[in-house]
């Protein structure tokens, strides 16, 4: 990997939240002291984004993600700290931010492309592609005030992805459009990655971070809460989202004579993504590797209710009468025929232990997550007695 495309050092940003802001000279003269409150949107944030890598930035609303992006893009001036940037940068903080309703689609493409650093000639060359990508052939000479919001968003994204900066900052814009368009956007991001461009992505879609980012960071109340592998940072984010703050919590432990190679939660639609409906079948697939010969290996899992952190379901191979024996690699499937519990988030803990001694080889505590929605139900018809009466009036 190359040098750092972005070096953020001790970056802090203070917003002064002034109750009565003096916006006139008279007020300025009359009010001797303005009542200002400091709000630290960023607090000593340091991170590097390497050239050619894709960096995910996650956190709650108001955690400082967008502020960080704006400081990096040069829209906001940091209160302290520095940002060093190598190469040309384009920031996409809001799709179609530069669109003007009175202009036609075509004129807006040129205006927006100029904002993002494209020359007229470059825009000329990319124009057909942009229109094709946005699927707006035949609409380009209409004023954009007649566009639907979906069309606007598509056009905004189409322009942005045809700009070819060295560093691209993207704020929460992949979550737009229908599924087909989203897939197209992801494809485009992949092409960016292949071209060796650097991407910083702010998003709430945690699965996207795991899927496309090389590294990730999580911000919490303006501070850098976690940074590292996307999967780890996302897990951390999920704990925080669920309010799990167990100080004695150990995510992974064990002596590793046997190891959990991979865990996949298979949903009924055949994918490993997305929520399930209550009553849907669910399969937890655990791939186990023995680093040293281990006898009496027991594989187990446990499902915990994310709301209460109580175990609601568990199973183990020994209880099912399966002796795994010695092996290099084996796949164990736990099939739940119908998941009966309430809608919500559920954690999965997977463990390898010795079935007689209880010795722990490898445990991943609450590492995996799935979500349950309520199935739309057609109520069964039941016999309800109805009393029918008639009387003279």
């Amino acid at each position, binding site marked *: 990997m190359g040098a750092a495309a972005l070096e953020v050092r001790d970056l802090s940003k203070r917003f002064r939240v002034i109750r009565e802001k003096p*916006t006139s000279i008279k007020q300025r003269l009359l009010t001797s002291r303005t009542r200002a409150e400091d709000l630290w949107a960023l607090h000593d944030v340091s991170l590097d984004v390497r050239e050619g890598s894709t960096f995910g930035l996650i956190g709650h609303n108001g955690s400082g993600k967008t502020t960080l992006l704006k400081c990096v893009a040069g829209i*906001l001036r*940091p209160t302290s700290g520095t940002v060093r*940037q190598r190469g040309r940068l384009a920031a996409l903080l*809001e799709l179609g931010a530069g669109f003007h309703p*009175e202009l036609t689609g075509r004129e807006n493409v040129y*205006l927006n492309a*100029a904002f993002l650093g494209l020359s007229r000639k470059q825009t000329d060359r990319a124009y057909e592609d942009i229109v094709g990508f946005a699927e707006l052939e035949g609409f380009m000479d209409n*004023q954009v005030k007649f566009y639907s919001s979906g069309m606007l968003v598509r056009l905004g994204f189409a322009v942005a992805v045809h700009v070819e900066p060295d560093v691209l900052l993207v704020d929460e814009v992949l979550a737009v459009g229908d599924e087909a368009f989203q897939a197209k956007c992801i494809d485009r991001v992949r092409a960016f990655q292949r071209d060796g461009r650097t991407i910083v992505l702010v998003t709430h879609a945690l699965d996207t971070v795991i899927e496309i980012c090389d590294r990730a960071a999580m911000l919490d109340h303006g501070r850098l809460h976690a940074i590292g592998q996307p999967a780890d940072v996302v897990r951390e984010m999920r704990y925080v989202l669920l309010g799990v703050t167990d100080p004695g919590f150990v995510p992974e432990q064990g002596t590793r004579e046997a190891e959990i190679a991979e865990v996949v939660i298979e949903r009924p639609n055949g994918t490993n993504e997305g929520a399930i409906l209550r009553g849907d079948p669910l399969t937890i697939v655990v791939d186990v590797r023995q680093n040293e010969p281990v006898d009496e290996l027991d594989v187990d899992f446990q499902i915990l209710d994310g709301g209460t952190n109580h175990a609601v379901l568990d199973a183990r191979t020994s209880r099912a009468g399966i002796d795994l024996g010695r092996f290099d690699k084996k796949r164990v499937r736990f099939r739940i025929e119908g998941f009966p519990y309430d809608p919500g988030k559920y954690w999965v803990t997977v463990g390898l232990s010795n079935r007689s001694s209880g010795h722990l080889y490898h445990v991943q505590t609450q590492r995996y997550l799935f979500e349950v929605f309520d199935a739309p139900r057609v109520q069964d018809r039941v016999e309800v007695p109805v009393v029918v009466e008639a009387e003279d009036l």
Partner: protein
Amino acid sequence: MDALETTLRSSESPHLRVRERLRVLAAHREVLANLTRKELKVKYAASVLGAVWSLLNPLVYLAVFTFVTQVLGTNVPHYPVYLLSGLLAWNLFSASVSTGSRAVLDNANLVKKIAFPREILPLSSIGVALVDFVLQMAVLLAIMVVSGYGLSMPELALLPLAILALIAFTTMLTLLLAAMNVRYRDVGHLLNIALLVWFWATPIVYASGLVQQELGCGDILGFGCKLVEFLYWLNPLTPVVEGMHRALYVTVSPEGTQVLYDVSLGWLALVLAAVVVASVVLLRFTWGYFFSRSGDFAEEL
């Protein structure tokens, strides 16, 4: 890969380095062109007459002031040429300053979401006014030539100098007001009043020669000169408008009435050059002010 340019952003209020900044602005000239085009489009969008409106405005002024001067009995020969040559310059100034001072505020959505040199916003306001000016000027010159009023040298040589002085002064002031307006919204109100006073303090509608007669001393820089006359010429728009008059209206005293200020061409050129130099020097400071404040625009809007 080492060819990539490194940019450093820090907490320090940015300090204007003119040459470097000019390069940045040059790199963003497409944004300026596009924004100016956008403003023009939006200005005349959904109007039937479109750009004709920009020609109609001076014509209405002409009708009104011709009527007023007739009523007042002040007789300026070839009044349309006199009025329009000054009025078009004034329109460029007042349109630039009033829309330019609001440029950052009016484009808050852009400033908050997109990184680009903020100077472009007031500059595009000036650009729009300049397009109108060129259009109006072309029509005026065409009419003058066709109607046989004619253009004469060497007076015409004052025209580019006057326009240069006008643009330099306008840019200098617009950048200052645009930056101040973000923090103090009074600027807009104050400007409206100031422009009204300023309009009448500049010899656009009335004959400048009358001012000279009233103030009564010919030699501006002479020691006997009245302070008022000095102040009158301290208004940078006075030499600009007077330069336009001399370039297009040409004749100082036609048929007995003194219409223009009786100063030599060379002296007028000198004053205009002084306006250019002073404006450019001041521009360095107002631009510096705008630039150092521009880092906080997104936050203050």
